[in-house]
């Protein structure tokens, strides 16, 4: 099991005739064969993805009707990306993954205003690496080989830092159910909390890695919900302890403004919710593995001591 994408997902690439769109469509198709075509306005016809011929449509509506697309990956330049997202939503595409970086905030505010009233269209990104269910479907720019099928759900605002965490898991033999990059912009589609809820409900996910960074309060919101409702263990890491206030750290959304959005405040909120926070980016994988081991030990202890006070023990386990 997984969230949002699997072997049945049928992906189109908006901007498939551009160099980046074509390059990544080729890689995604080689990974698990989910690509069914692309859209470039005015360029209907065919595109060659390293020997595989794919149909190109003028509009998303045609791609849905003729190729059965139910997901899209957007590589459209920033000035036109907001329009591309809304075109995909209008065509009834359920999952819209927007890789494009540098979309004006005002454009995204308009997009979200429309999507809020359009049930059934989920946006991931923009300015994100995309989403992957290892072995089943890859939509985005992440290197496929670093992933391994398994039961850890990964959520992150960044690209290479996610690869780092995923690689730590994979090289230690721990696989992932789905890895989702929600993007580094101040206004984005799927939030940390949305993704946590999806993983919490997914029977194929046993634990969650949440990677955040300075700026905004998305991590705090996720932490508050996890503390009250999440049934699964969560490990977190927050980047930007040393970031100076008032400066945008590469990502448009990574900025401490008016004293809000600091790494320290996020870590405090996460810890208060009983979430294990990795001290450094080098130990994200280790922190999860040792948490899972300690829970396993606690469970086997509980199983061997039938008269133990169940509720108290349960609570202490969760806090670890």
């Amino acid at each position, binding site marked *: 099991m997984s969230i949002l994408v699997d072997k049945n997902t049928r992906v189109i690439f908006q901007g498939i005739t551009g160099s980046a769109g074509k390059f990544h469509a080729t*890689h995604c198709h080689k990974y698990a064969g989910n690509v069914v075509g692309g859209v470039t306005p005015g360029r209907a016809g065919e595109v060659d993805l390293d020997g595989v011929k794919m149909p190109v449509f003028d509009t998303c509506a045609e791609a849905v009707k003729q190729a059965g697309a139910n997901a899209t990956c957007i590589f459209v330049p*920033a*000035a036109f990306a907001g329009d591309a997202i809304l075109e995909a939503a209008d065509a009834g595409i359920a999952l819209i993954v927007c890789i494009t970086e*540098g*979309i*004006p*905030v*005002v*454009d*995204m*505010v*308009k997009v*979200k*205003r429309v999507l809020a009233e359009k049930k059934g269209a989920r946006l991931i990104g923009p300015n994100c690496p995309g989403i992957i269910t290892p072995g089943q479907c890859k939509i985005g*720019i*992440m*290197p496929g*080989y*670093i992933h391994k099928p398994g039961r850890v759900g990964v959520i992150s605002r*960044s*690209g*290479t*830092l*996610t*690869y*780092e965490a995923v*690689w730590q898991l994979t090289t230690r033999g721990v696989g992932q159910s789905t890895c989702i990059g929600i993007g*580094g912009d*101040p*206004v984005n589609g799927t939030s940390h909390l949305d993704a946590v809820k999806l993983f919490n409900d997914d029977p194929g996910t046993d634990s969650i890695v949440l*990677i955040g*960074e*300075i*700026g*905004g*309060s*998305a991590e705090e*919101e996720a932490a508050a919900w996890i503390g009250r409702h999440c049934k699964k263990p969560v490990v977190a*890491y927050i*980047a*930007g*302890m*040393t*970031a*100076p206030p008032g*400066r*945008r*750290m*590469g*990502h*448009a*959304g*990574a900025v401490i403004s*008016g*004293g809000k959005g600091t*790494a320290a405040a996020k870590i405090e909120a996460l810890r208060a919710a009983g979430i294990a926070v990795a*001290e*450094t*980016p*080098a130990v994200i994988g280790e922190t999860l593995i040792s948490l899972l081991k300690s829970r396993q030990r606690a469970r086997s202890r509980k199983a061997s001591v039938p008269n133990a006070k169940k509720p108290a023990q349960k609570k202490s386990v969760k806090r670890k």
Partner: protein
Amino acid sequence: MVQSGGVARTPEEAGARYDEIVAAFGSGAEIVVKAQIHAGGRGKGGGIKFARTREECVAAARKLIGMTLVTPQTGAQGRLVRSVLVVNAVTPQRELYFAVLLDRVLSRPVVIASTEGGMDIEGVAAKTPEKILKEVVDPALGMMPFQARKLCRALGLTGDLAAAGAKLMLSVYRLFWESDCSLVEINPLVITAGPDGKPCVLAMDAKINFDDNALYRHKDIAAMRDTNEEDPREVEASKNDLNYIGLDGTIGCMVNGAGLAMATMDIIKHYGGSPANFLDVGGGASVEQVTAAFKLLCGDKNVKALLVNIFGGIMKCDVLAAGIVGAAKAVHIPVPLVVRLEGTNVEQGRKMLKDSGLPIITATGMADAAEKVVRAAQQS
């Protein structure tokens, strides 16, 4: 409305601004001359002067232009004053606060007003949150006149002042939206006697932040960029499309990806070092970018050691290693260089670094890399 006057780059221009104000207000009007730098706290640093006569105004400008102004926000090195603002002095009867910004949780613009103008608004929000009035704007509609009237009423504005206040608020909202601002803050928004003696609403000071991603559609705003007010290292970096922020530590770092770059700074600190910068060379880390980045990092006199941390994703480690070796040979690197590569073909990549003949210290994992670079910086 705003104060009369304008910017002057020379004492002579300040005199001309004086004449314009006198033409509007009559002689005897009190004049303020304010140093124009990208930092607050100017009054405390002696960057604001008052004048009654033309001579006093020109003398104040002569004194300010060319001086290095040190304020609580500039740091000890201060900032060179290149221009001044010359305006008529205003005696506020009341100081209010008004701002438009983006609410990230709601993904909508919000309009904020407060009776506590002229002060640190974060402090007001923390101590007396009831004094912060907030209206959420539906982006499909824009700010509605009734929302402006509501805020004016809550600020205690009535009659003509309420009408003038609402008009100002709606105009500021339009500025925020149409110019792709991320913040427009009027602080203080004052009630003062107008030229006719009647009370009026006046925006006395303002801070406007723009969305960098939208500057392509506002050429006029982009043209206002003043690189004199920026860190020269950052100006150089932006010419090479590098995402760079200068800090004051001793370890220069080069990383691919913004999140990993922040995490690298953090782990340097964790192991007892201090990062000299944030630098994201992009997910692909091309040879050109790596070369430009090495030049930039080596130009920083504080840097005692370099750390390159690259996660080779789609770009394979052997290709990246070739790029690093090529760039390191092209640029003379006077300090120890620690390189940590991870990803596809990492063994080949590490071997290429080793065989290059360059004094590169290779590291495996971020912790190892941070430890090695901190040690190297302490020893050099």
